[in-house]
C-alpha cells in the first residue's frame, strides 16, 4: 500500500514548537528521524528526568508529539557528525529546524547540502525582527500572539488556553506550509526555505478580532463582553457542566430548549418565555446573563450531562457536555467510532518501573482517509550508537 508521504524523508531537529510537524507527516508514511545530540534533544532530556516534578507533564507531550519518529544520535559539534548529517541531508526531502536547536543558526550550510530540500524553521517570533532572539514560552507566546487576551473573565487576568496550544497551532500551520513547499519542490526540483513564526500563527487564529478593530474600531474582549449572548455559556447540571448556545441567531436552538422546559411544566419555561428574551441586545447584558443562569440552572440541575445531551440530540438544541479529560476517554461517540488507538509507549515504560509495558489509549487520527494510509506508533528511544558517515 502506497502512503501519501512514503517517499519523503524528514530530518527533524525540533524539540518544542515544531514537533507536531514531523508527527503529522510520520502518521501518513514519511520516514521522520529525530537527529539528537548525545543525551538527546531538550524534550527528551526533560521527559527522561529522574525527577517526576520535572518529567511531568513533559513526558506525555514527548510521547504524543514524537510518535512514529525514529531517532539517531549525531554529534554536530564533531566533524564526523557533520559529515554524517551532510550525507543524510542529500537524500532528505524536508529538514525541520527550531530556534535553540541544532543547526538553526547554520541555515545557509543546511541549504547548500541539497538544492531541492525544503527547510522549515520554527521559532517563537520568526528568523528576523527585533524579537528574533527573545525568550518565549507557551504562556508568553499566547500573550504576544493575542490569544490570551481573548479568554478569561473581565474582572480577572487574561487566561491562556491549556495544553501547550502554541505548539499545536504552530505545528499545524508549519505542517501545511511544509507540505505546500514540498508539493512544489517535487514538481520543480527547487527547494524552499519556510520561516514559521509562532507569534504569527497565534495572531492568525483570533476569530474576527482583527477585523473588529479594522472595520468597527472595537477591541474584542475576554468573556465576550458585550458580544456574547447570555445563552452561550456553561451551565451547571447534576453531574457537572453543559455548554449551551441558543442566541437569537440560532433561534431554533432557543425555541427547542424553551419548548422542552415548558413541556416538563418547570417554572423556568414561563420565565424564559417573557418578551425580553426576544431582545437580542438585552440578552448581551450582565443582568440577562445573571437571570438566565439562575433560571436555567434550576432546570438543568435535575439532569445529568448524558440526559441533557440526549435531549439536545432529540430536539436540535445546540448543547453538549463540558467534558473533563477523563470524560473524553469515555465519550460514547468517540468510542463508537473507535477513535482511540492503543500504543505501547517506550519512553514512559522505560522511566516508570510500575508500568514496564505502558500500553495506553492514544488519540486517533485527526482525519479518516478512505485508504488505510494513517497509522501511529510509539516514539523511538534514543539511538545510543553515534552514526558513522
Amino acid at each position, binding site marked *: 500500500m502506497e502512503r501519501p508521504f512514503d517517499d519523503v524523508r524528514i530530518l527533524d531537529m525540533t524539540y518544542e514548537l515544531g514537533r507536531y510537524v514531523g508527527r503529522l507527516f510520520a502518521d501518513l508514511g514519511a520516514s521522520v528521524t529525530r537527529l539528537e545530540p548525545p543525551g538527546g534533544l531538550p524534550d527528551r532530556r526533560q521527559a527522561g528526568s529522574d525527577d517526576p516534578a520535572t518529567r511531568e507533564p513533559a513526558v506525555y507531550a514527548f510521547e*504524543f508529539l514524537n510518535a512514529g519518529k525514529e531517532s539517531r544520535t549525531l554529534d554536530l559539534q564533531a566533524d564526523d557528525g557533520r559529515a554524517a548529517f551532510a550525507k543524510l541531508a542529500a537524500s532528505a526531502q524536508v529538514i525541520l529546524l527550531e530556534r535553540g536547536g541544532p543547526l538553526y543558526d547554520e541555515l545557509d550550510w543546511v541549504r547548500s547540502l541539497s538544492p531541492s530540500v525544503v527547510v522549515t524553521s520554527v521559532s517563537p517570533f520568526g528568523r528576523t525582527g527585533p524579537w528574533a532572539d527573545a525568550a518565549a514560552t507557551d504562556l508568553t507566546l499566547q500573550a504576544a500572539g493575542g490569544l490570551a487576551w481573548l479568554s478569561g473573565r473581565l474582572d480577572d487576568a487574561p487566561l491562556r488556553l491549556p495544553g501547550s496550544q502554541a505548539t499545536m497551532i504552530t505545528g499545524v500551520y508549519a505542517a501545511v506550509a511544509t507540505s505546500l513547499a514540498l508539493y512544489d519542490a517535487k514538481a520543480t526540483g527547487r527547494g524552499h526555505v519556510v520561516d514559521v513564526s509562532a507569534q504569527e500563527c497565534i*495572531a492568525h487564529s483570533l476569530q474576527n478580532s482583527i477585523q473588529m478593530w479594522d472595520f468597527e474600531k472595537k477591541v474584542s474582549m475576554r468573556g465576550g463582553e458585550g458580544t456574547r449572548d447570555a445563552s452561550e455559556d456553561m451551565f451547571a447540571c447534576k453531574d457537572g457542566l453543559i455548554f449551551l448556545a441558543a442566541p437569537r441567531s440560532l433561534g431554533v436552538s432557543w425555541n427547542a430548549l424553551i419548548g422542552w422546559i415548558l413541556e416538563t411544566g418547570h417554572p423556568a419555561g414561563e420565565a424564559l418565555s417573557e418578551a425580553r428574551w426576544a431582545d437580542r441586545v438585552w440578552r448581551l447584558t450582565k443582568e440577562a446573563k445573571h437571570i438566565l443562569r439562575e433560571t436555567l440552572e434550576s432546570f438543568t440541575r435535575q439532569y445529568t450531562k448524558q440526559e441533557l445531551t440526549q435531549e439536545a440530540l432529540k430536539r436540535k438544541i445546540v448543547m453538549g457536555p463540558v467534558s473533563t479529560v477523563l470524560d473524553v476517554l469515555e465519550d460514547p461517540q468517540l468510542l463508537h467510532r473507535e477513535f482511540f488507538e492503543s500504543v505501547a509507549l517506550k519512553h514512559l515504560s522505560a522511566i516508570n518501573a510500575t508500568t514496564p509495558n505502558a500500553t495506553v489509549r492514544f488519540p486517533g487520527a485527526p482525519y479518516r482517509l478512505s485508504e488505510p494510509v494513517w497509522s501511529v506508533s510509539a516514539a523511538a528511544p534514543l539511538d545510543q550508537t553515534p552514526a558513522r558517515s
Partner: protein
Amino acid sequence: MRPNFLKGIRFTDLTWAGAGPFGTKVFADFGAEVLKIESMTRPDSVRTAGPFKDGVVGTNRSGYFASRNTGKHSVSLNLKTDEARRIVRDLVAHSDVVCNNFGPGAMDRLGFGYEALCEIKPDIIYLSMPMYGQDGPRADLLGVGMTISAVTSIMWQTAYGPNDPVGPGTHYPDHAANPYHAAFAVLAALAQRRKTGRGMKIDLSQVESTANFVGSAIVEAAATGIELPQIGNRSRNDAPHNIFRARGHDAWVALAVTDDAQWHALTEAIGRPDLGSDATLSHAAGRLAALKRVEDAVAGWTRELDATDIIAALRPHGIAVARVSSSRELIENDPQLAHRRYWQHVDHPEVGPVLLSSLPFTIDGERVHLERPPLFGEHTNAVLGGLLGLSTERIDALNGLGALS
C-alpha cells in the same frame, strides 16, 4: 510573492461559515482556483455576521468573510434548484477537490455523495468535515466551535484554577485545529493522487481533529487514570509563571521563569535580592511551594511599571516575558509583526482597503501576497460561460429559473 505552487488545481468549495472556508483559503493563496459555491437563499453566515465596514451591514462588507476567503472565486448557485445541483456536478467533473462542512447526510441529500461524485470524477478528492463525524450516536448533535471545545475538554481545562473553568473566549477549534488539519489532509491526498492516480475521501470529524490538539493531555489521563490539574496561567514545573497586571488600564504582562538562574536574575531586576538569597526559593519546588509569596513579589513590581519597561528590564536576562496584546495592540504597536510586514492591506471595490493577517510564515524570505475576497457571485458568469462553456442565453435562462440566486 504570489506563489503558483498549486496552479492547475481546482476546488469546488461548498464549505461555509468559519472552519471550512479558513481551510480552503490557503489553497487559493497558493494559486489553486477555489470556486466558492454560495447562495443568498442561505447566505454564508460570516457574510451576515460582520464586523461590517463602518458598521454598515452589506453582503460584501463583512470583514470576517474577507479574512476567510481571500483569492477565491464566488459562484452563486441556489442548491435548492435541480439546475444548480447539475452545475455543481459539472464543476466537480472539472475539479480536483470538492469540500463541504455540512452535517452528516446533507451531501447525499443533494446528490453529492462520494460515490455519486466519483462516477463523475473518479479521482476526486472529497473532504467532509461534520462536527462529530458521519456516523454514531452523537453524529447529529448540533454545535458551534465552542461546543467542540466543550466535548474535547478544552473548555474545562481553560480555567483559572480547580473547578473554575471559563473556556476559550473564541470558537477556538474553528481557527486553527480544524481548518489546518483539513488542509493538511487535502495536501496529503493530492500527494497520494500524484503518485497513484487515485483520489480519496477524507472524513474529518471536527471533534476528533480537535481532540488531537489536547493529545498530550489525553495521553496523560489515559496513562495515569487521574484527571489533569486545572492550572490556568501557571506551570506544574516552575514559578513564577503567570499573567501579572502592569501599570495602565487593563494592561497585563505574561512572565515565565523556567530555571533557577532566571529566578535569580528576576529577583535582581525587581529589586528583591532578599528573595534571591533565600535558599528555600532557589529551586523550582521551593518556589512552587511558596507560590503566593513569589507571585506577590512579582505582582508588586509589575503593577508600578508600564509593560514596555517590564519587558525591557527582563528580556535581556533571557526571561520569557510579553505584553498580553489585544487586537489593537498587535495591529498598531507590535514592532515584531510590523518589522516582518505581517499586516497586509488588500484593496476591495466595495469597502476600500481591508486589513488582513498574512499567512504566518514566509517562503524564501517573502510574504505570500493575498488577493481580495470575491464579491457575492462575482465569478458566476465567467465560470459558467468559460469553464462550463454555457451560452449567455443559457445563463440568462438559469438566472430566470432562480438557479443563480
